[in-house]
């Protein structure tokens, strides 16, 4: 298992690449989903005014 994470001494580069990619793709989805929630709330609040 340790060998797997070590990646022949290239662990920083391999895991760094996968980590940054996962972060970028998940963050993009989270931002888009949160915007939907905010928009719905904003429009709903405008009905009450």
């Amino acid at each position: 298992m340790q060998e797997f994470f070590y990646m022949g001494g290239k662990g920083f580069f391999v895991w760094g690449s996968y980590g940054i990619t996962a972060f970028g793709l998940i963050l993009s989805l989270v931002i888009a989903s949160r915007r939907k929630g905010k928009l719905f709330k904003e429009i709903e609040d405008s009905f009450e005014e």
Partner: protein
Amino acid sequence: MWSFFHKLSSPKYYYEWSGKWIPWLGGITILLTALGVYWGLVIAPTDYQQGESYRIIFIHVPAAWMSMFIYMVMAVAGFIALVWKTKISEIVVSECAVIGAVFTALALITGMLWGKPTWGTYWQWDARLTSELILLFLYLGVISIHSAIEDPRIAARAASVLAIVGIINIPIIHYSVTWWNSLHQPNMELVSESPSMHPSMLIPLLIMAIAFKVYFGWLLFIRVRNEIISRERSTNWVKKLILAS
């Protein structure tokens, strides 16, 4: 078929139609990504020359393909926006720019992380790397136009022109390794009698490429739907939709 595209240009129809696809695209993205990452990191054998660092290509290459693919989608949407002036195509241009910029940045960062152990440097002003960086600037230019111009319809027209003009960079990126002496390796021959990759490495690469394409569709639908809601907030159908939720 034309009547379907005609219907798709209606924001209400597009909103309802894309909503049916979102759960499917999300599920397929998660499944394919899990399979591709597992295959790429665990099953695929170690490369005899590059060792383990070659495993970065399973995300770097699909991200680079996506950066060019999304630009072409954006340019086609830009052309439709200029000729037929449909709201949906205008929204697609602005949303593609954001997603494309993310994929281009990821292609550049993962490329740098692959370059250090392979070439001994993170960056080189090489034709392939520089043209990919220009692609990122083109995406940022389209995003800036949308932020700088208040009227979204005028912004869409200006951004569409930039998207169409910038398409010249796509063949430059693709053929940069052929036209100039490059540190970057030549384009991979995937469809030939002797593909340049062994199937044990080629299959996870293609799985990840499909996963990224489906992810793009998933995120694009979510973002376009958000923008539709934002622009159509004063219409009755959006009011009904909000009240029903």
